[in-house]
């Protein structure tokens, strides 16, 4: 195993409250962030993901234990040294008036610059490289107020890259973004981890993207932290247990959350093509169970002269329908 970029030793995280006593969110964490890996931090709301990130970034004192950055205690490092070891991207993207994309990314060079924060030629090279790395070269001259949330978040990531730190921590960077933007940012982070050798830890609620892109997942739930490859955590049921909530469960087959089926009538859909898959979803959405063995109705996809056609069989009686909606209607009419 390589040397970890970040390591925690028996770390306990939480915060102290005056008079009411301390709140400890997690204890005895022994975690490792390896160079070149994208790690996803997942867990229900309020479990302490942000507190963990703040503690790892030394913005908050640990309740016990240590955070080591390249072997050095993060709490004992000077702010400048810390900023050369670890960079941060948060959920919200501040955008001061009149600031351009280049200027924003250039702020990442502050820990490397003199007392006035002047940019040298090597600083400019680093800023331009970071802009290119996130495909934001064309945003360099634009004013932040004229950009979209997704573009600004890409610039914030470029800023963290320009900081040239071995570790990048991101706290729900995609929370305010639309789906394509989320996919884009998570893919970007994966590439950056693999290509630049940075250790990147990203907290997210987007389980699907985390499963697809992360090299490792940290699953946080009350009192425990499960670490492993995404697929292993799916297969051993850890993800299902972590997000266990009444009425909603994680479906290992599809890798997504689903509302638990009502105890509705059982129906059998034959076949496994795209059409059949969406028919099953339509049935699930309407509270039917899928049961190949004991279905009160059978559905299959056939053809007629004009195109595809649904064949619905209830108690040996066959009816033909041209759309999913029509099948659902027929089921309802039959009192199923």
């Amino acid at each position, binding site marked *: 195993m390589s040397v970890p970029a970040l390591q925690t030793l028996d770390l306990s995280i939480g915060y102290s409250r005056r008079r009411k006593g301390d709140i400890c969110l997690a204890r005895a964490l022994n975690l490792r962030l390896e160079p070149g890996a994208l790690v996803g931090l997942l867990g229900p709301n309020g479990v302490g993901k942000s507190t963990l990130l703040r503690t790892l970034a030394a913005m908050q004192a640990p309740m016990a234990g240590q955070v080591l950055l390249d072997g050095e205690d993060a709490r004992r490092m000077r702010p400048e040294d810390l900023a*050369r070891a670890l960079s*941060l991207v948060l959920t919200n993207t501040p955008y*001061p008036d009149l600031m351009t994309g280049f*200027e924003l990314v250039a*702020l990442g060079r*502050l820990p490397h610059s003199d007392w006035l924060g002047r940019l040298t030629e090597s600083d400019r090279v680093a800023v331009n490289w970071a802009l290119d790395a996130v495909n934001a070269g064309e945003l360099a001259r634009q004013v932040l107020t004229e950009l979209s949330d997704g573009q600004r978040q890409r610039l914030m990531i470029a800023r963290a890259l320009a900081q040239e730190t071995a570790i990048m921590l991101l706290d729900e960077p995609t929370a305010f973004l639309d789906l394509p933007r989320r996919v884009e940012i998570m893919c970007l982070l994966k590439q950056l981890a693999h290509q630049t050798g940075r250790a990147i830890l990203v907290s997210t609620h987007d389980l699907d993207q985390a499963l697809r892109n992360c090299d490792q997942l940290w699953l946080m739930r009350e009192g425990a932290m499960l670490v492993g490859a995404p697929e292993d955590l799916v297969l051993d049921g850890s993800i299902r247990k972590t997000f266990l909530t009444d009425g909603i469960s994680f479906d290992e087959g599809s890798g997504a959350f689903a509302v638990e089926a009502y105890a509705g009538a059982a129906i059998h859909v034959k076949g496994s093509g795209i059409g059949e898959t969406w028919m099953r979803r339509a049935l699930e959405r309407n509270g039917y169970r899928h049961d190949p063995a004991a279905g009160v109705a059978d559905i299959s996809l056939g053809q007629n002269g004009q195109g595809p056609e649904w064949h619905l069989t209830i108690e040996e009686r066959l009816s033909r329908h041209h759309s999913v909606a029509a099948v659902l209607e027929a089921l309802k009419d039959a009192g199923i």
Partner: protein
Amino acid sequence: MMLLLMASVLGMLLLLSMALGSVSIPLDQIISALLVGESDTAAWKNIVLKFRLPKTLTAMLAGMALGVSGLLMQTYFRNPLAEPFVLGVSSGASLGVALVVLSTGASGAAMIAGLGFTGDLLLTTAAGLGAGLTMALVLLVATRIRSSLTLLILGLMFGYLVASMVSLLLYFALPERIQAYINWTFGSFSGVTIEQLPLLAAFVIAGLLIAATAVKALNALLLGEDYALSMGTNLRRARLQIVLSTALLVSAVTAFCGPIAFVGIAVPHLCRGILRTSDHRTLLPGTCLTGGIVALCASLIAEMPGNNLVLPLNVVTALLGAPVVMLVILRQFRGRQ
């Protein structure tokens, strides 16, 4: 480039402010009075050296101080409506002045006069003490709190608290004393003598130098305290630099010139509008020059050359400042849509 233009405008205004006044003095006489300390009549020399020079320099220094402290507050609190007085320093000064002006009865005034204090100096001392004590309080608080928002709210609350105490004093005060207090609140660049000028200058220069050392932190703070911290800013030190600088600048100006409204809030907006940047390496000298320009303009307008009428300074600064703030707010609103 733009900064050079600003500097030359400031230079011209300095000359203009020396040249214009209720007594017209030939330009060559003014220059010779300034350079060699001589002019054709003693009266001209007196007017130039004892009145116009201190007034002009005071206006410039006060404008610079208020402009820069306004910029510091707006960046630190990340609020376009923040101004130098949000820390409560000028409220402290006004309480000091109110205590002296309103509470001393006839015998008290005689006693103070017996100690060698005369009117203006007494007010300056009272304002300076009030501002200084508030400044110490703010610094004490600033080292202990965690977020800038706490400081902002505490400062505002302190302002309200002090304002109510002043109101209480006003309520029980004699009418002619109330007039004296109100005169102080109008603000003036003419109260500083040539002997007091070095003291004001020392405070302002010290404040500006401290502000200059905070330039890097100010740029980082544009993204908020969390990001600033993650980019290597020592937040505690930055907060001390910003608060100390503002306190020095504002307490000195308020002590010597009274509470001068609007310059502090309007100048940074004006400067950003002209320079089109958020970089404090440009904005800091920029607000310094713009502040000097605005204050000198206000001073010139207040004196209404060729006329013996002198308008209260705060009337003029608000007349200049309010439209600027309105324009900025409207433009920002449009920009966000």
